[in-house]
């Protein structure tokens, strides 16, 4: 069960808008992800008044907790698989918008289940795809700094296979552009 609690720091109107919006959209994106062939939890009930979603509990471990301790080959294999799933989402017009290793669960059967689509949106734009993958890269850098580089390369490898080389190249260029837009990036002139 996922209940979106009221945040005291937000003014009530904004608080309600955000919770309502996310409660409605999350199940929609979760459903569409399944159509794209990406495992997600099954939704049982959506309560927009109580801003609550009742969904399947996924048995398994957050990728965050296991990635660093995997043998190198398995680690890269897992990252390629994650890249493939992201590629499927993007192909299907879904931008996850919170791609971190906390939001991916590895089940005992070796499936990777994506969760937390609360910030997701529908888009086929290169810009949105670029931002999405840029977030994945940043999440790897902040949490798995030891292997961030090779992991992200493997993610891109899987992503390229899922979405095709020409689109992948465009998205990669976009990531570069997004990074240069950020503050204090040495590549920016």
């Amino acid at each position, binding site marked *: 069960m996922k209940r979106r609690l009221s945040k005291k720091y*937000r003014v009530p109107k904004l608080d309600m808008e955000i919770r309502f919006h996310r409660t409605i959209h999350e199940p929609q994106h979760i459903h569409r992800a399944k159509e794209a062939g990406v495992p997600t939890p099954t939704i049982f009930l959506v309560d927009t008044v109580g801003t609550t979603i009742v969904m399947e509990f996924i048995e398994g471990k957050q990728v965050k907790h296991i990635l660093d301790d995997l043998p190198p080959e398995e680690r890269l294999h897992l990252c390629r698989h994650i890249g493939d799933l992201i590629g499927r989402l993007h192909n299907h017009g879904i931008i996850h918008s919170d791609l971190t290793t906390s939001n991916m669960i590895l089940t005992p059967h070796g499936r990777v289940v994506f969760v937390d689509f609360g*910030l997701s949106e529908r888009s086929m734009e290169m810009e949105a795809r670029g931002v999405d993958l840029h977030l994945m890269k940043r999440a790897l850098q902040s949490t798995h700094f030891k292997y961030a580089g090779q992991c992200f390369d493997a993610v891109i490898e899987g992503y390229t296979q899922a979405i095709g080389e020409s689109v992948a190249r465009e998205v990669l260029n976009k990531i570069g552009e997004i990074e240069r837009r950020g503050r*204090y990036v040495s590549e920016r002139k």
Partner: protein
Amino acid sequence: MLNLPKTSKNQPRKKLETLPKHRSVASYCLGIESTADDFSVGILSFNGKVLANVISAYVPDKGGIHPREAARHHAEVAGKVLAEAFQRARVKPQDVHVVAFSQGPGLGPCLRTGATAARALASYLGVPLVGVNHCVAHIEIGKLVAGAVDPVTLYVSGGNTIVSAFEAGRYRIFGETLDIAVGNCLDVFAREAGLHEMEGMPLGALVEQLASRGQTLIPLPYTVKGMDLSFSGFLTAAVQLLREGKHSVEDLCFSLQEVAFSMLTEVTERALAHTEKPEVLLTGGVAANKRLQSMLESIAEEHNVRFCMVPKQYALDNGAMIAWTGILAYQHHVTLPLEKSFVKRKWRLDEVPVPWVGG
């Protein structure tokens, strides 16, 4: 020429504990801050006591900071600010043991002015030079004066918007702006609304005043992307609403603050949940905003962690933070040879090893 200390310049010295006995007087570090509109000199003793923290702000006649004009201001006031700092600290120049300066990130001309002053002073006194990262300095002085040990830091100013925490040798960035800084966003909006900056009354404070009289929340884009934020589209939307003239400036300022600060607080809260740190530290120029303080206080309470608030004179850009970080770096043998002391305009927080933190 002054009496030079015995050690030759630029040679890393031993740690504080093992300093030669003949230095019976306390050791001092002088820090020069000049990344943007403020030129500031701080003097601290090695035990973390702030003896002077003199700040001179460049206030533009109109518009934002013009880098060249700001640098000209810095060059003009440098001598005066230095003299005042020595006088307030009651420290003689020859008692300064280390000179630290903000090496980046920031505006090129401003950084170079501060760096030039620091190089001149260090070579004249024959003492080592330390290049300090401005963002690291904000965190370090915050920890010192607010008594934090291992916090999640929300650093918000005109140039930066960063959520960070210490992890394996560095301050890692968990969330940051993808485009402009939140303070920049508030400033530009304020100027669009016809507000004028005054000495001691920054634009952010004027927005806060107006916001306190606003009541109606006007929809503005709430842009959180994972752990990162975006304020450029948000600013454009706000400015458009302002030009349409359908809403009062008070309501717009209110909405601007509510939405922007909710975004900041959401990301900070997620970083807190993710890292499970025991404290949350708020610093930077925008930290002076009472509404933002109350929001962060609220999440700190919910997560049962300590809320650490940095007093204004140490939350704004200041020389004391540079001096303190200079001391920490120097004690861990991090010094900078003169020939390598060029400024780094785009020096990211997470590029800097901080050997003085943690085990």
